């Protein structure tokens, strides 16, 4: 079947099989930041934004993306670089395999949450697993990133 959707700001017409997942389609289109860690919807590695909402592309049918706006890390380079610098500053990169999914979920969280209290942040990011167990570094980086505006004002 033929679907039409926006991928990282570009309109795409693509042939997909009826049971293909968005994850496989995105990899075919060269979005290699999108990875599959568990394939059981637990790890968050395959997180992308569909119409601004964080979704697990490993369980999202490509057919359902018809007419949608899909953003992967490749389409959020500026924000990813900014957040990436906070991850690096906290030594939270480690192997880096989970970073793309984490970054996409942090970007979704930044838009969605009104309050960045630690418990809210931890709960929002509970679906992003890190095999290096670098959670404390990631949490410090996320907190610094989310409070960056306040720091600028203080300066």
């Amino acid at each position, binding site marked *: 079947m033929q679907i039409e959707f926006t991928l990282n700001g570009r309109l795409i017409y693509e042939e997909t099989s009826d*049971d293909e997942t968005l994850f496989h389609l995105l990899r075919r289109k060269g979005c290699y930041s999108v990875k599959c860690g568990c*394939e059981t919807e*637990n790890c968050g590695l395959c997180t992308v934004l569909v119409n601004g909402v964080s979704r697990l592309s490993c369980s999202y049918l490509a057919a359902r993306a018809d007419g949608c706006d899909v953003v992967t890390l490749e389409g959020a380079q500026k924000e990813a670089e900014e957040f990436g610098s906070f991850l690096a500053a906290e030594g939270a990169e480690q192997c880096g395999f989970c970073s793309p999914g984490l970054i996409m*979920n942090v970007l979704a969280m930044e838009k969605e949450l009104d309050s960045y209290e630690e418990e809210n942040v931890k709960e929002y990011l*509970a*679906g992003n697993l890190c095999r290096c167990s670098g959670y404390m570094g990631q949490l410090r980086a996320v907190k610094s990133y989310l409070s960056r505006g306040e720091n600028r004002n203080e300066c």
Partner: protein
Amino acid sequence: MIRFKNYVRAESLEEAYNLNQKKSSVIGAGMMWLKVQNRIKMTLVDLSGLGLDGVEETEEEFVIGAMCTLRQLEIHKGLDGYFPGLFKECTRSIVGVQFRNGATVGGSIFGRFGFSDILTCMLALDTYVELYKGGIIPLEEFCSQKYNRDILVRIRIKKDGRRAFYASSRMTKTDFPLIACCVSATDDTYYVSVGARPAKAELAVISRREREDVEELAALAADHFRYGTNFRGSAEYRKHLAAVYVKRLFMVLDREEG
């Protein structure tokens, strides 16, 4: 992983129902549980184009579309206003936000899964399911029915003045529950729902006057259910946990009443 040949986005409930009468068809909701099943089907029927993805609040009830996501349930202001903290508590440990952005209420309820937090929670409320052909029936009755090829359209939760609280225990934070409990109360009755025993949630209705002591009342409630053993815990442990959590929930309800 599930495989299928044809994807059909249904344009009406009638079309979805007719397609679903074949055993080779399956309804696709959030696709979270369905996707990890090792099944081969001819047709997947998608309900996402039927406008069933909202929560509507009226004076008498909340009407929740079958395609409403667990995240919508979690953050809905009307639901949180009427049942403070209840839906937040029963959804927050379900994997992660991305998962809850996909998983649907209809999928959770229709599946009647033995691990379902949502079913456990809704069973303790005055909840009804609206089936396309089967009409509107109480959720408890729906739970006891065999699986059929009808379509779950909406869930209706009556505003009958019940207050409710939820608690669950997990081996790790985002795992399936080891035990899930929800207790609601009217003036003279407790409605106790216990799920993840590990079996689909069931309801016990207990008079508040049956015992004076809250611990005895909780033990009585826990005795209503049968428990099983799996690698997460033994039947004995689950029963013990159920009694403890139900007691705590009774106490929270009593405290709320002052």
